[in-house]
């Protein structure tokens, strides 16, 4: 079977949606040259009117996309750095997100915000290493964090077709993933549908984004000893609460691994929601970044602040006791 890389999956999803719907256009910095490899070949195929290189004016082009969306376009914005989301938080949280309700349903804002290489890229230091997906879930922007190439493809297609703003984080720790796939089988993935990568009976591990692969590794390491179910929500908002509940009804034990800062991270929400509705057999655990984390530059320090496989394994062992 042919191999699909994560970045190629994003590229394919963009190309097929642009093919399918002439309203789909892409805005971003250095996207004609495709420095992030996401938009490779698109300008050649669709022209500079639909693959629009922007000056370094994120606040302007984010709301420019909102305006274009209100007027019938379906823009996708590629941001070079996750922290640029802090710069455009007003444009997304306070403008794009609020139009539908504030206009009494007159307006739709079908914009997709795409963050290739979110989270730590090791060595890019404090202002390039954030992973603020929980912030967007908190505000109520539809938020997806695909772990695999096929999910990246399927969720990007869905995001583009969705009539609301959707934000996609493509974690730096996942973008080097490749997968054997039958291209004919690539399909949209609905928002709010989780995926069980490994089934198990003893402990449910909810893992977000690139950390799904760490969770699978831990499940493999512990196989024969502790039976771990790996639940990948794929979309954090909306969240597949029914899917997770079904898993926990069997295992009754929960560990979450989440690359957010601890306070108010999505891990907290996942645990709170589950303990509100069921009694677990052991106190649940979270593995996250520390509170208020700023990633230090030195490699060993950067790695020390990110959630690790070893921490996850210890948490699973603790919860399984």
């Amino acid at each position, binding site marked *: 079977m042919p191999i699909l890389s994560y970045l190629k999956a994003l590229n394919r999803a963009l190309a097929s949606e642009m093919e399918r719907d002439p309203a789909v256009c892409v805005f971003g*910095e*250095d996207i*004609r*040259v*495709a*420095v992030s490899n996401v938009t490779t070949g698109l300008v050649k195929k669709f022209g500079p009117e639909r693959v629009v*290189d922007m*000056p*370094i*004016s994120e*606040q*302007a082009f984010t709301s420019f996309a909102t305006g274009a969306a209100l007027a019938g376009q379906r823009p996708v914005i590629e941001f070079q*750095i996750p*922290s*640029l989301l802090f*710069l455009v938080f007003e444009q997304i949280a306070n403008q794009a997100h609020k139009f539908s309700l504030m206009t009494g349903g007159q307006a739709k804002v079908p914009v997709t915000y795409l963050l290739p290489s979110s989270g730590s*890229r*090791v*060595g*890019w*230091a*404090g*202002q*390039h290493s954030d992973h603020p997906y929980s912030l967007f879930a908190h505000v109520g922007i539809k938020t997806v964090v695909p772990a695999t190439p096929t999910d990246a493809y399927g969720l990007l297609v869905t995001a583009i077709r969705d009539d609301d703003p959707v934000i996609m984080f493509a974690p730096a720790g996942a973008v080097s993933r490749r997968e054997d796939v039958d291209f004919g089988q690539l399909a949209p993935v609905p928002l709010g549908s989780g995926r069980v990568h490994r089934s198990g009976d003893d402990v449910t591990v909810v893992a977000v984004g690139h950390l799904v692969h760490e969770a699978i590794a831990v499940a493999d390491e512990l196989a024969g000893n502790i039976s771990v179910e790996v639940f990948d929500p794929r979309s954090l908002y909306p969240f597949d609460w029914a899917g997770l509940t079904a898993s926990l009804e069997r295992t009754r034990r929960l560990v979450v691994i989440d690359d957010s800062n*601890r*306070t108010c991270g999505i891990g907290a929400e996942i645990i709170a929601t589950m303990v509100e509705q069921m009694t677990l057999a052991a106190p649940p*655990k*979270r*593995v*996250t*970044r*520390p*509170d*208020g*984390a*700023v990633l*230090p*530059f*030195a*490699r*060993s*320090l*950067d*790695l*020390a*602040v990110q*959630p690790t496989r070893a*921490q996850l394994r*210890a*948490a699973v062992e603790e919860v399984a006791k």
Partner: protein
Amino acid sequence: MSDAAALYRAVRLIRRFEERAIELVRSGVIVGGIHPYIGQEAIAVGFCAALRPGDLITSTHRGHGHVLAKGADPSRMLAELAGRSTGLNRGRGGSMHAADFSIGILGANAIVGAAGAIATGAAWAAQRAGQDKVVVTFFGDGAVSQGVLLETFNLASLWKIPVIFVCENNGFATTMRTEEAVAGSITGRAEAFGIPARTVDGMDPVTVLDAARAAVDLARSGGGPSFVECLTYRFDAHHTWEHAARPRYRTDEEVVAGSTRDPMEIQGSRLPADLRAGIDDEIEILLEEAVRFALESPEPDEHEALDYLYADGMRARAGVA
């Protein structure tokens, strides 16, 4: 040392520092790569030569030149790039955040256009405290498309703040040409806010120094902000990832043509050959020592990854409980 020799020495130091740093990126000692300043040295050197030790600067992602020109110790700078605890920022900042407050370097900044407002606030505070300090803020042509910088022009001009805006127009923002990104003119932006602005040859250290002295005199004598656009060319990559990725946005011929006027040669040719050779030798020894110092310095302890997060030493909760 004469002015001419001092200017040459500073340009040469930055040039050779960058060349050594690129080698260390290639050998894996510097993680995350760098944005080389090669070709633009005259600007940092000319402006910093016009400053007093107590004056302040802010810098950018392409910041090594500014930091060295303001007087940072090359050994501690290189140790910072190598992520060592002896680095200027104790290994926490790296290439894009190098700072030395003891000599007026308020830091390089990884967000385009972000530092201008910080510089202006610092200049306002100095003015308020009755000090006759001047602040220079360096930024690229890409930054003039950032709203925050334009907002800052307004404040600086309204309150006659002693800040000097130095735009290094090297022809590109990553892959985007200045003329594709900037409507009107760069200096016209500052002029619109009543800030005197001029464009100078950014390749000749003496020309830059003259322009810098005029701007500094104006600011120090209560005349308020001014703006200097320095025309220059980036000889090397936007970032060292280009050395491998080779994105095509300018031709090799164009790079050769753009690099014919070299600040190092322009200034070097003004010195007697033996004086120049002596300076070159001295710098080789200095950098040899800097590399040795960086390589022999210890890496920070990962248990201290979040030291310095809060001013009062408050400890953040860890990512696991």
